[in-house]
């Protein structure tokens, strides 16, 4: 079971293909492209963070500028401590696989995540295990998301490559997989490769 320290949020909206989680701390959402998971026993769902937002709790009430008389940005939060409670940070994760028992599947789980399920950041070991297969890349490429596919795929691969000693080999292998997947779309391939090279 994941450590408490790796807990980054709680599911507040869930669908078959993605879920949205709220962070416990303002601005503490995981980086774009990170691998996260949530548990719906006995299934563990894996997702890749594709989007993060920070906005007012109430949709109709937008924050107003408060810093005219403050010396620093930090000062704003200090003089208005309620701000941290009126704002919230959320992130969206695209479901890219799940684990049931000992096996890892790189396709959608039978059911979506549970609301209020805890969301954890995956450990380097888990990232390594998950990225043994590049099947998830196809799901990333074919998803319709607010963020561009090139950005998401490259961010994800950069994140994952950090857990490898031989980053170059990992990126080349991923690049080759992409070259096959994007054989009909050379420009997209070039854009992604340009973003992941070291």
């Amino acid at each position, binding site marked *: 079971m994941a450590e408490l320290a790796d807990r980054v949020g709680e599911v507040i909206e869930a669908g078959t293909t993605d879920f949205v989680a709220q962070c416990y701390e303002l601005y503490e959402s995981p980086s774009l492209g990170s691998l996260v998971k949530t548990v719906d026993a006995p299934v563990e769902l894996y997702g890749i963070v594709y989007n993060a937002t920070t906005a007012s709790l109430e949709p109709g009430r937008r924050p107003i500028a408060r810093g005219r008389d403050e010396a620093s940005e930090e000062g704003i939060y200090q003089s208005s401590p309620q701000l941290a409670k009126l704002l919230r940070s959320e992130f969206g994760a695209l479901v890219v696989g799940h684990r049931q028992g000992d096996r890892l599947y790189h396709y959608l789980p039978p059911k979506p995540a549970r609301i209020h399920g805890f969301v954890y950041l995956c450990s380097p070991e888990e990232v390594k295990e998950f990225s043994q297969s590049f099947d998830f890349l196809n799901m990333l490429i074919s998803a319709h998301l607010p963020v561009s596919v090139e950005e998401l795929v490259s961010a994800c691969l950069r994140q994952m490559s950090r857990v490898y000693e031989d980053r*170059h080999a990992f*990126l*080349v292998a991923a*690049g*080759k997989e*992409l*070259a*096959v997947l994007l*054989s*009909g779309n*050379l420009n997209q*391939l*070039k854009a992604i*490769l340009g973003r992941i*090279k*070291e």
Partner: protein
Amino acid sequence: MTEENTERLGIVVSGSLNKGVEVRLDSSASVEDIAVGRYVTIEGEKRRFFGMITDVSLGVIDQKLTLTPPDVSDPFMAEVLAGTSTYGTLHVLPMLTIGGDVSSLIEGPQPVKTVPSHFSVVNLASQRDVELVFGSEDEKRFYIGTPLDMETRICLDLQELVKRSNGVFGKTGTGKTFLTRILLIGMLQKSAAVNLIFDMQSEYGWAGTSEGGRSVKALKQLFPSKVAVCTLDEENARRRKVSTDFVVRIGYDEIEPGDMVLLRQTLNLTELAVEAVYQLSRKFGRDWVQRTLDLKDVEELPEGLNIHESTLSNLQRGLTTIGRLPFLVPHSPDNPVKRILEYIDRGMNVVLEFGRYKDVTAYILVANLLTRRIYAQYQERMEKAMGEDAARPTPLVITIEEAHRFLNPGVASQTIFGDIAREMRKYNVTLLVIDQRPSGIDDEVMSQLGTKITCLLDNEKDIDSVLAGVSGRSELKSVLSRLESRQQALIFGHAVPMPVVVRTREYGSAESYKAFASVDESEVKKQAEKDIEELWE
């Protein structure tokens, strides 16, 4: 390269039995490491295939890549695209199948009758695979060279080789003579056959020269007890300090009308003059040459001979040209055919050196004359052997150079060489044909050659004539025209299970002589042991 560590090249993606299969290279294998002519094994589902790479090409997954090439100066980009968006393909011609069912285990590699299934893995052939196909050196197999980029020894089954007539082809300076010398040594060591070599340039008997002008040892120096050297030119042999076993003299009375037919072109005889030869020899008998030369004009012709004056003078001029050859004498005191046959019967190889008489007239005349008579003797003995169950004569291989002069379509049907090539081994006589213009040789004769060994050829007609009737011809053509100009040869036909490109073994250095001789020594030892055993029985 060891057996365990076979190099994976790629997978089969398409193909046909006729045209060979396409292999897509793995991204880890670079096209630049692949050479045409190398061997691969294909791991099919039920059997292994053994084949040869005949072409290498480049492919792209999307034509756009060729129009807007990616920035390959970036190593990451280049590495990712290699083998995925851009890839190499090999064209492989499967030749043999190895293993699989019981019969193939017993009979060894079999010719292919099908192609491997889709996505079969293709590996570079290992040393063991090559050995399995070509066999390793033993009593009948002779190490002739190594395949390209490998250390394995390719061995020729010489006992099979000498059962048919064979050909060695190649442009001048591609190593035909060296290759032939190696082959002759092989036959001398590993086959039951003896050789009669018509040695136009005096290169096989005592010593030859390499292209660089270095002198190399030839047969007699390496195997003095197994080779006899005879010469037409005693003086030349003495000057070159060659110890000859005997000197060949040929009498006028040994020249037969058939010999003149061959010489028609070189002596510039007319058709009628050749016709006249037959009439004259019928009338005059064995002495026809001398008596024709003695004729002063047509008036002196005997009754019943109707020969025009110009024809007679044309013929006389031709005969005078022959008569000027110093080794021709009115009556030969010795019978060269008998002497040669004596050596052959003792299992010795005979090299006939031509010395200074390098012109074609002498060569054609002597080679044809001697061969015809030796062949006649063989025919007689063979027939006797069949009838009376007597011992068959020792198999004989006759080596001729400039073969297109004897075997061109115009004369092939008339010369003894044409007969030998066609009738093959019926009478235990076969040919080793050495030539630089195979297109000049009669198609029928070419088609009868069992094994062809060819160095680089670059004339389209020559290549076509050498490869006529071989399966996978167009593929072999690309291999043949890309041979290096020295020390490389393509061997195909009866004595090898599949066409093979070899880098011929070293010849001319002290070690190479030792390597040739060492086999001989071991044989001597074996013989000695056998003798001792017999002694105590």
